[in-house]
């Protein structure tokens, strides 16, 4: 049984179709990459999976249960963790408190029970030196790290990552890939939207290509990158 399945999910903003009959399944323990040109509907797809946006049609099934009508809170508790492409930290809270709130609410535990784990996640994501700084004082790269750390704090079964590698140096990117690999190795299923293909393909086993809200291809990275239609879409956008 897949951990996450979308069945004919659709969404329009006025006349603009941003999700057009999207269907796919993510197996337990799988890492799936999502690519597609700017404006293809990748972030929207995440919002439909998490419930930050409601679908116009279709169903979202998570862990065997239909969550299509559930609010984001319920889906988070069920085990869907996500990062925002444009970081959305709790600016007036400290970095540590950002994790604390996510861990305490996202896994229904007391603050006391989760504080050690939050500290450990801060070590793992390289944010520990900033633990007591307000999130509002962080720069963009650290905000992206905080997105990852906060999503991890909710103890997700599926982690949705939206372009967290952009703007990193080669070394930083490698570090991030290592972190994501170890999260994956710990049993978390992953859906990763990323424009930096070599980072993406070093983690994921399958790629999904989205264009104008439609799934136009899905399969092994090598096959996908060899396919003509995908090359057409990507020519000039990514080298």
């Amino acid at each position, binding site marked *: 049984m897949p951990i996450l399945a979308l069945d004919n999910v659709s969404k329009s903003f006025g006349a603009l179709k941003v999700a057009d009959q999207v269907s796919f399944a993510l197996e337990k323990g799988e890492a799936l990459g999502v690519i597609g040109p700017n404006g293809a509907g990748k972030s929207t797809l995440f919002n439909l999976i998490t419930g930050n946006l409601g679908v116009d049609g279709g169903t979202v099934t998570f862990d065997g249960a239909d969550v299509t009508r559930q609010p984001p809170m319920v889906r988070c508790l069920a085990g869907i963790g996500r990062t925002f492409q444009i970081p959305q930290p709790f600016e007036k809270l400290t970095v540590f408190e950002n994790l604390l709130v996510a861990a305490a609410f996202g896994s229904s535990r007391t603050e006391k029970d989760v504080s050690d784990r939050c500290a450990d996640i801060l070590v793992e994501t390289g944010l520990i030196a*900033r633990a007591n700084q307000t999130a509002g004082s962080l720069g963009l790269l650290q905000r992206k790290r905080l997105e990852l750390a906060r999503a991890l704090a909710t103890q997700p079964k599926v982690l949705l990552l939206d372009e967290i590698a952009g703007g990193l140096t080669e070394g930083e990117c490698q570090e991030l890939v290592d972190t994501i690999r170890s999260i994956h190795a710990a049993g978390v299923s992953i859906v990763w939207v990323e424009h930096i293909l070599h980072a993406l393909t070093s983690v994921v086993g399958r790629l999904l290509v989205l264009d104008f809200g439609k799934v136009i291809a899905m399969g092994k990275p090598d096959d996908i990158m060899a396919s003509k239609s995908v090359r057409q879409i990507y020519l000039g956008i990514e080298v």
Partner: protein
Amino acid sequence: MADHAFSPWKVETRTRASSAFGLVALAVVIAAAAAPLFVSRSVIQDLFFILTMLVLAQCWNLLAGYAGLVSVGQQAFVGFGAYTMFAVVILAGLDPIVGILLAGITASVLAIPVAFFAFRLQGAYFAIGTWVIAEVVRLLLAQWKALGGGTGTSLPSGATREMFGVGLVSDWLGVRPSQAADIVCYWLALVLACATIGFIYKLLRSKQGLGLAAVRDNREAARSVGVDPGWMKSVVYLAAALVTGIAGALIYVQKARISPDAAFSLTDWTAYVIFIVVIGGIGTIEGPIVGVIVFFILLNLLADYGSWYLLVLGLIGIIVMLFAPRGLWGLFADRTGIQLFPVRRILTGASSTTKGVPHG
């Protein structure tokens, strides 16, 4: 990582300023409790006014400053609580203190349908909605002939003099029963103010308080990490209504005379309260405390200027909003970093890598 049985991490919220302040606060409360032994009746009445306004201000600050619920209809709960108490005393012949406790219950029951309607409205519409609902409640209660209808009524003579504890205080301090009633009301107000501040501080330091802060900072992200903003707001709204209802009933035990226009006064129970919170500093517990003292001083300074004082209060409010949006306490705290009611969770550990600004 280190062994978890002996966790290297520690979480602290207390600061040196807050620990020292705890002792000062204790001394102030003890002095306040002993005040009736030393000061005149009119001072006790002034202190009663300050304490009850402080309670209303803390409630409004909890709503607007922490939960983003800018209500201009809190007079609904003041009036409803006050009328509950009057009904309990006049119609059921019970002790006003029973009425005060019941007022908390009826006010929170009233808050359920009010929240049901008002929570559908956003921003300015919410504010207007709460005000309209308060007007509706006022008009309804003005129909209640047994409680004086539109002109209002008084507590039966003797109701407050025979109130629980009044006889005791009268004998003990050797004062007339009417003065003893004022003293009992004052002590109740002191207990209510301490309990309200204690409750709010505890709430803010709890997991729920962290959730509230998250919703305030970023609602969408809060939803995504498992926080339910609607639930948090409902709980805060009900709690504020409960305390506001109790405060309303207590205020009207002391006044002993009620009318719909006075008990549901937008100026007295919401506009003044907003002024207190705004000049003191919204979103802090310290703010309303500073605000109510400034408000009381201004009220006395401007007492001789008739209706001009409303205009002056309004002007001062606007000036503070423009030049010190976080109020007088905000100005002070920004310069000194002092927090008397700290809620920051500071992470410390064996690792010397955790640096940062431990606010306060």
